[in-house]
């Protein structure tokens, strides 16, 4: 019986080991976890070792090799969730369910897990329960939810508010997630008509003309790295390959970012149209939306959108009457790994493997998915290409600053009155943004998520643009009541310890060592030498392979640079060395086991 389903799943994906991630997610959906027996079947059928299958499973935190609760609660432990009271919520879940996080109730009903940022920073604390999102949790809600679980009610019945605005209320989504669009620009405008760009513009242009229009717009990648989009497309167009692929990177995992969630909810047609335009430009026939597992609640809806686009001849064969232009899109789910937002890790992951970054060159535009030329563009980048072709490169260049053209969709969260989505032209200062979002007594702003910088008030006049403060869109605001070292820097450092893929030694070790240093300093055992070592060690991070590795020490480095006083206040001035070792704690466990009173 069990094996039948696994065999069917393998058959469904043509015994293609590159689709392992899909198979694992399907098997888990059916049984709640991936058993040893099922791993054996997969290994046999796919001609891989059990260790190969196992290493993929253990890499992703939503894949489980042990049975979990019928209701599995994934509570977001990102920074903003904690600021909004996550600890209380967590304790309440533990109290109500009678288990600790990481455990399953004896009756197998409920399991509690922590998870990294789920893209709901404007409505925390939030949790994912059996793929459904629960936002703005309170201790009262926790009681209600656990009670409903004890009564075996379906998860959908546990909502107690109306659905969120916009498409969140669509019968295909029915989610309580709110968009919180506070300011919209060209991307979030209401007058977008799907297919107009393909029908009225692209059909009259050659692929090279499309690429040169994008190049002229000076559009740069919106995921964070800021690579010129037109150039990427041109490289891919010139690369030789029997097949080419367009990936939309919807893995937004940078804590504090949630703009792609809103774009995918409100403008999925625009995202898919952008992918289609890219396909036309580079000569690709296959597209993949790599969607983070956290956004699986959008699945039915997005599939329907794709089907509708087929119906309108905006996907499929001879798209918009352009003879010979065939393109189709499928959705590929991730399974919970921040690193998969890095384009080569994303490709590895889509090939069913551990999401470890590839050494470069070759770049994905030459050798990407399955070894073929591949474009990986962020959700927002693809939407921007549609507005550029709609209105022209000249119009686009008028927006923003000379070298950072266009608009940026910002995800603003933390200590402000109006957290949410703000689409702004590049060139606003942090002060402007604080005013816009109703933030007061601001102590610091984290620009660009944990991999970005912790910016102090003295630099609030700095401008958001590629040449000054570049950002993938995450801005988290901290007011004077926050303990920056304990709450912010520690949380971000723990995040990087958790999310390092483990491939490069410095990235695997240094964040863990920095965490220890922070703990030591917090405990009052720090000395000046510790600060010096933090700086020296952080420099080593530059030899890591990918962007995560390069930036994983940033929370500590930028806070040490911009808020040195906070560190100085905690370290011992008159001591040159303090190991911080606590001998009585170190011998407690062994003495207890052998029944001996410690004498130190």
């Amino acid at each position: 019986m069990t094996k039948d389903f696994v065999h069917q799943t393998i058959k469904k994906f043509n015994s293609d080991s590159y689709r392992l991630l899909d198979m694992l997610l399907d098997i888990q959906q059916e049984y709640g976890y991936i058993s040893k027996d099922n791993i054996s079947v997969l290994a046999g059928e796919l001609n891989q070792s059990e260790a190969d299958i196992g290493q993929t499973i253990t890499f992703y935190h939503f894949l489980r090799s042990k049975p979990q609760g019928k209701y599995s609660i994934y509570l977001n432990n990102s920074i903003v969730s904690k600021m909004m009271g996550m600890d209380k919520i967590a304790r309440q879940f533990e109290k109500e369910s009678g288990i600790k996080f990481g455990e399953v109730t004896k009756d197998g009903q409920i399991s509690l897990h922590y998870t990294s940022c789920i893209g709901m920073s404007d409505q925390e604390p939030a949790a994912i329960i059996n793929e459904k999102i629960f936002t703005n949790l309170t201790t009262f809600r926790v009681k209600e939810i656990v009670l409903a679980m004890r009564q075996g009610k379906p998860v959908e019945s546990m909502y107690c508010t109306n659905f969120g605005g916009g498409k969140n209320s669509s019968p295909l989504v029915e989610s309580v997630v709110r968009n919180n669009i506070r300011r919209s620009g060209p991307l979030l405008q209401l007058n977008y008509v799907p297919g107009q760009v393909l029908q009225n513009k692209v059909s009259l242009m050659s692929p090279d003309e499309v690429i040169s229009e994008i190049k002229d717009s000076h559009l740069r990648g919106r995921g964070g790295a800021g690579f010129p989009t037109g150039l990427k497309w041109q490289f891919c167009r010139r690369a030789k390959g029997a097949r080419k692929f367009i990936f939309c990177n919807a893995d937004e995992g940078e804590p504090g970012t949630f703009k792609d969630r809103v774009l995918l909810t409100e403008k999925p047609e625009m995202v898919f149209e952008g992918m289609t335009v890219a396909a036309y430009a580079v000569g690709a026939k296959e597209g993949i939306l790599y969607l983070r597992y956290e956004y699986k609640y959008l699945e039915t809806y997005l599939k329907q959108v794709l089907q509708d686009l087929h119906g309108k001849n905006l996907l499929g064969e001879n798209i918009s009457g352009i003879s010979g232009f065939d393109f189709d899109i499928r959705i590929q789910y991730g399974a919970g790994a921040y690193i998969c937002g890095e384009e080569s890790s994303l490709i590895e992951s889509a090939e069913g493997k551990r999401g470890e970054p590839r050494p470069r060159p070759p770049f994905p535009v030459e050798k990407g998915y399955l070894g073929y030329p591949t474009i990986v563009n962020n959700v927002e980048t693809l939407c921007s290409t549609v507005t550029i072709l709609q209105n022209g490169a000249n119009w686009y260049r008028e927006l923003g600053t000379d070298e950072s053209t266009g608009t940026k969709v910002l995800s603003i969260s933390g200590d402000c009155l109006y957290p949410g989505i703000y689409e702004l032209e590049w060139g606003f200062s942090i002060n402007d943004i604080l005013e816009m979002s109703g933030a007061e007594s601001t102590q610091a702003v984290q620009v660009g998520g944990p991999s970005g910088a912790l910016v102090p008030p003295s630099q609030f006049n700095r401008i958001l643009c590629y040449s000054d403060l570049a950002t993938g869109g995450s801005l988290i605001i901290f007011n004077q009541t926050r303990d920056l070292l304990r709450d912010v820097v520690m949380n971000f450092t723990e995040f990087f310890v958790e999310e390092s893929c483990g491939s490069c030694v410095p990235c695997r070790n240094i964040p863990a060592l920095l965490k220890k240093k922070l703990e030591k300093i917090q405990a009052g055992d720090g000395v000046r030498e510790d600060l010096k070592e933090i700086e020296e060690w952080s420099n080593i991070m530059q030899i890591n392979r990918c962007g995560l590795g390069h930036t994983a020490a940033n929370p500590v480095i930028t806070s040490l640079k911009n808020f040195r006083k906070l560190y100085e206040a905690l370290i011992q001035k008159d001591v040159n060395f303090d190991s911080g070792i606590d001998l009585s704690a170190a011998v407690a466990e062994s003495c207890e086991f052998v029944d001996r009173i410690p004498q130190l």
Partner: protein
Amino acid sequence: MSRPIIATTSLAGCFGCHMSFLDIDERILDLIELVEFNKSPIDDIKTFTKDCDIGLIEGGCCNTENIHILKEFRKKCKILISFGECAIMGGLPALRNDISVKECLAEAYLDGISTVNKEEILPNDEELPMILNKVYPCHEVVKMDYHLPGCPPRADLIWDVLHALILGTDVELPYEVVKYD
């Protein structure tokens, strides 16, 4: 200047680093012309009889006695050197660091397949050092001045470093000497 005084010890190590030290071969004759040994297995002096210039520490700290000796070395020696992987990173003994000390003790004294201990006697005599929750590298206990990598550090490296320290000259550390594999 009077001859510099050297002390050495092996904590949670296997004495392999000391064996490598002896691998300086006939140069040991040169060395004893240059230095005097105090507390060390090399001359079997068990307790410090005077302050020393250089202390070589093999092994990390797995119990309270290791900590005690290491702290004593720090007090008595001007320069303290972590000598080999175990002193620098905990080395092989630190493989237990991911396992709780309770599990380790249970495996060793109660549950191990070759264990015969019907009365379930556990080592708890006051005379015995207490076991630490994990194996600590030396620099997490006291300030260490230098680290000599290797498992064990090569005899030539040990000779070159001691020679340089004693004569106050520079030491060459080519890649082959400090590489990690």
